[in-house]
């Protein structure tokens, strides 16, 4: 890159972040490095569970379970040490949030500002159900064919179409 003018360099950097699905970094899933593991396999498994919910702050969109970044490694070691000390998940998460803010947790905690995350989809479903049933009461059913007649018509028209 050294031979390219500066503005070009910026563009080249931009172009790298371009293609869809590129956001995951190169050599990931470094969490399982045998040199770092806790001796107790249950504690290690528990720590891995926690890693998946902690964001690698310097990566694009990865948990520290996947990232190879030095910061992710440091965070893993901090969490492992706390797990080995027998601290609870809540204590560990509060510690991380106090240090790095809400951004560090991949599952946002329930709060008023985040309520839309859970309420949004529920509202869509409720609105849909309301639309379906209001439509039914609004439009009186026309005296139509019986189910058997309907099936016959369907059968006839299908045979005609084929």
């Amino acid at each position, binding site marked *: 890159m050294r*031979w*390219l*003018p500066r503005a070009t360099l*910026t*563009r080249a*950097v*931009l*172009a*790298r*972040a*371009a*293609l*869809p*699905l*590129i*956001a*995951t970094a*190169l*050599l*990931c*899933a*470094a969490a*399982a490095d*045998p*040199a770092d593991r806790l001796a107790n396999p249950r504690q290690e498994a528990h720590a891995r569970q926690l890693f998946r919910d902690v964001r690698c702050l310097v990566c694009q*969109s*990865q*948990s520290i379970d*996947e990232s190879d970044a030095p910061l992710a490694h440091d965070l893993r070691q901090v969490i492992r040490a706390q797990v080995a000390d027998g601290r609870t998940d809540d204590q560990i998460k509060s510690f991380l949030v106090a240090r790095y*803010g*809400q*951004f560090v*947790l*991949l599952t*946002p905690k329930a709060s008023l*500002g*985040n309520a*839309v*995350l*859970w309420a*949004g*989809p529920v509202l*869509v*479903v409720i609105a*849909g159900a309301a639309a*379906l*049933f209001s*439509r*039914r009461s609004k*439009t*009186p*059913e*026309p005296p*139509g064919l019986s*189910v058997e007649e*309907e*099936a016959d018509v*369907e059968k006839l028209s299908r045979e005609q*179409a*084929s």
Partner: protein
Amino acid sequence: MIDELGQFALVLALALSLAQVGLSIAGRVRRDASLAGAGEGAALGAFIAIALGFLALIHAFVTSDFSVLNVAANSHTAKPLIYKVAGAWGSHEGSILLWCLMLTGYGAAVAASGKLPFGLKASAVATQGLLGALFIGYMVFASNPLTRLPELPVQGNSLNPLLQDPALAAHPPFLYSGYVGFSVVFSLSVAALVEGRVDPAWARWIRPWTLAAWSLLTVGITLGSFWAYYELGWGGWWAWDPVENASFMPWLLGTALLHSAAVTEKRGALASWTVLLGIGAFTLSMMGAFLVRSGVLTSVHAFAIDPRRGVLLLGILGIAAGGALALYAWRAPALKDEAAFTPVSREGALFLNNVLLAAATAVVLIGTLLPLIRAAIDGTPISVGAPYFNLTFTALLAPALIALPAGPLLAWKRGDLPAALRRLWLAAVIALAAALATFGLVTPRSLLAACGIALGGWVIFGALAEAADRVKAFRAPWREVGRRAGGLPRGAWGMTLAHIGIGVFALGASFETAWRAEATEVLRLGQSMHLAGFELRLDRVGQVFGPNFEAERAHLRVTDRAGRLICEAAPERRLYAAGGQTISGVAICPRVLDDVYVVEGDRRDAAGGPGWLIRGYWNPWVRFVFLGPLLMALGGLVSLSDRRLRFAITARARAARQPAPAPAE
């Protein structure tokens, strides 16, 4: 010289797109067929001009013309030819050109289709031209792929080696043809609002475009996911990454559109909702392009590097989507939408599908955008990651899959649910048996995965039961069954295939997620490690040279419990000198449904001699994860070949044989 001609062609395409808008609108207002015909000619001309510009860019890449900024930043003389060609759409500028190529291509296809009524067609061609003008204008003025450099560099910067991969070379064309395919539905929806008429005929006209766009998008997303699986060395296939979400949202809404359009086509109901989905699918495509291309999501800071582009793309999104939605708010209340149906009916089932898919789209949309919104409003950055999406998405998808098999068995208007369920008893028994067997036999036990297996089996065998019911299998003589199977419309077979596909995906996703195994060890030569019933022994480590990289390659013997050789895995770590990146080349030992997946990590020298960090994954049933979506796409293609849609193609071919109207000056 060729670059300048290409540059000229791009500007010409902009002019032709503007002419396409003006002529089509004038033709529509004056009801003048020759004016509207000239607009169609301009649409064809714009496509040809963009294609010429695209060829010029490919030429620049193939000949390594580093006087072109885009080539210098993204290519290298030592790069294999296929990646030189693919490099043409590997950068921001090139991908926008590809987008414009697709957009004008679809515009030309609409212009050439001979089936649409005059007013609707002219309005649709005008809308398509407006979209074309917006994006081509952006490309020419703010993101020009053929800009020259003042000083000529001796060597190029090369394409990110992760992108030098066959699946990823094919990924953008598929993805974009899917994204942009929805532009036709968007244009036809806007045109329908302008004309004030949405009827079953309109729903039938949007059907082939929706099917084509949806199938291509399905293939594009699957290719991207497959690439992420075997190239990134993390053993997973979906990360709920914002960039993945950006491509997933239009797919979800497009799926909803396919189903609601069926209601509009068969019953004339849900007309205004179908139009809204038609606008929404392409709006989400454009939003995906904005989110990915502006860099606002992948990195919060990239937006500040070149905010102009992000703002321009946002402006285009605002004009196109805002305009269409305003038109919708104004005109949609006048649309006739009176066909009545009870909740338990085919319409009701398709409506349920739409509600759940819309809610799933809302999940992805809110989860992707909320971090941005929160950061803008109160400056508290939050993260919304995989745990949230997995939970909410599963909660919405599960009821959809439970309801799915019954839907096609219900009659229109008023269905008989008990009768439908009676025809599904065998599917229910198989699903339950599969769940019990999974829960009982596979360790460690997982109730969630057993439920997933049950759902997958229920959907697959439910779809088969429905198809069997239609052809009267086991109830009529086989000759009669064969006759009926031949007489069924292709659309019905396509639906069955696509539904089986989603079931197959559910099986694979449940099984793989629950029982994937991982093992990591530092191995010295001759040492071995265990991975879920396999043994991986490191035999030797050597050096290999590729066309534009050199690599350290490990050779591992993978054997099963009985000591039988499964395969020789050869993962490598590649160094691409041109860009200075090291990436891992994953080795995959494919079994029938499973993969043994091996990644070579860095070298660790210890007291006992040199060792290498070897990571292995066992991904059971992962084949289903990719096979399912491919079956869905295949189902879409089979539906597309339905003879009821074939008239449109013959009419288009007839129109193409007639002399094309002269392009506008």
